[in-house]
């Protein structure tokens, strides 16, 4: 049996949780979460940790130079820098609105990159 301390990042409450795993790595118990999201987070964090990546993309012909973006779903932690590599190469033309798909599948994750801000055309 091994115990691991985790802090849920599901919301800013940041519940402190303790997960117990048996010799085969199976999760036996999770304690300390305030809501079910914490349980789900702990299971995922121990088996396949994921994160939402947020960044900015260059805009051409817009009222602003940059538009903020995010991966629509979370992506595997190990893919974060691959996503950033692709994001850095991108440039989009204004106008852009919240929710616009910038890239349908980023870094082979199957997850779309979407705009989170609005930039009007100049």
């Amino acid at each position: 049996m091994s115990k691991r301390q985790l802090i849920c990042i599901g919301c800013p409450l940041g519940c402190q949780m303790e997960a117990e795993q048996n010799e085969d790595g199976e999760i036996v118990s999770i304690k300390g979460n305030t809501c079910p999201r914490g349980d789900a987070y702990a299971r995922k964090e121990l088996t396949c940790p994921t994160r939402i990546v947020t960044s900015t993309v260059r805009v051409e012909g817009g009222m602003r130079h940059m538009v903020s973006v995010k991966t629509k779903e979370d992506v595997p932690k190990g893919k974060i820098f691959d996503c950033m590599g692709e994001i850095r190469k991108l440039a989009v033309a204004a106008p852009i609105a919240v929710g616009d798909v910038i890239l349908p599948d980023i870094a082979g994750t199957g997850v779309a990159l979407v705009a989170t801000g609005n930039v009007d055309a100049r």
Partner: protein
Amino acid sequence: MRQYDIVIIGAGPAGLAAAVAAFDDGARRILILERDREPGGILNQCIHNGFGLHTFKEELTGPEYADRFIKQVRERGIECRLNTMVMDIGVDSGRDANATREPSARPMKYVTAMSRADGMYQVAARTVILAMGCRERPRGALNIPGYRPAGIYSAGTAQRLVNMQGYLPGRRVVILGSGDIGLIMARRMTLEGAKVLVVAELMPYSGGLKRNIVQCLDDYGISLKLSHTVVDISGKERVESVTLAQVDENRRPIAGTEETYECDTLLLSVGLLPENELSAGLGVELSPVTSGPIVNESLETNVGGVFACGNVLHVHDLVDFVSEEAALAGKNAAAYVKRMEAAEGDAKEAEIEIEIKPLSGVRYTVPSHVRLARMQPEQVVRFRVGDVYKNCFIRAYLNGRQIASKKRPVMAPGEMEQLKLKKEQLLECVEPGTSSYCLEIRVEEK
């Protein structure tokens, strides 16, 4: 002069939410004044996710969260003037919008604003909602020895440069202060290809949210050195290195613990301060603890008809609570206008006032006093504690009677706490003939 029922200073999250709530409660002549060229305030540069779980039940980024409120403001056709700097807010006790009442009961406020398009002008307001937000504590207040080379930025300035301008201010970075913006910028600059060497925190605990330590530092192997500070900065033109040292319990550097980091950038994330120059000019009484206005249950300041919400009132770590608080200010401003129109007297008759006293570990509370007659069935009291507490209780006492108790596994100064008071319970404690009470809120171990 244009007359408004409610003039809101600032179109950040607080101002927007206050406007929407006031409108939904029947107020119509609402004006929002914003100095930036777009609404949304600081949220526009907070491109990370984690906003809106309470308000919208989904996790949004800062700009998306702002966008939802901007849309709500537009749908309602609320007037919002951008690129407008408010210069002054004054109260004219001699004039009164409601001429049937004695002149000084609910005096008009006069807001002096300036914009490039319209020059300097004044508007009259029955109520004003202060929603100017906060700014970063300046470096000057920090007393760091050494030269003043280029390459030292506040974390918020760096955030603006990276996220709005697309400019990376440095490649090897040391961060002083573990406030949330500093933590967020540690990750952001790492993602943009910079190397963040270390985050140093003067206090023995972090000033930011736990989740930000996990996902901004731990995820990227960035170490957090608690009880450490910057003792030297070298480099004449540009930062070349920063020396950290451990501090003792009196926060004085311990000789022999110095470590030097070669870097080109130092980010400072050493706290935020409510921006209250306008409030002070208006005669609003400020709290020495929060630097924000002292308010009652309606979030109204000592100047009648002037309300405050969001970071100008006290610095929040969660925008969801800013929106909630601002909505309350908006509703109360709308109610004030209604009372004014009905020429209704203030509930002076047997007004029972309860002062909230922060004690043993509780640094301040918002609100700081409650008029029972105006209190909602449930009143949220927000506060911060002064130290890290484990497995403690937050309790409220009125007349020696415990009226609220809440167990908290962990409390830290970096995370705002709240306690709900029930009007019913307060009513049970009041006695005939006594009109002023003191309600104590304290941290207790058992």
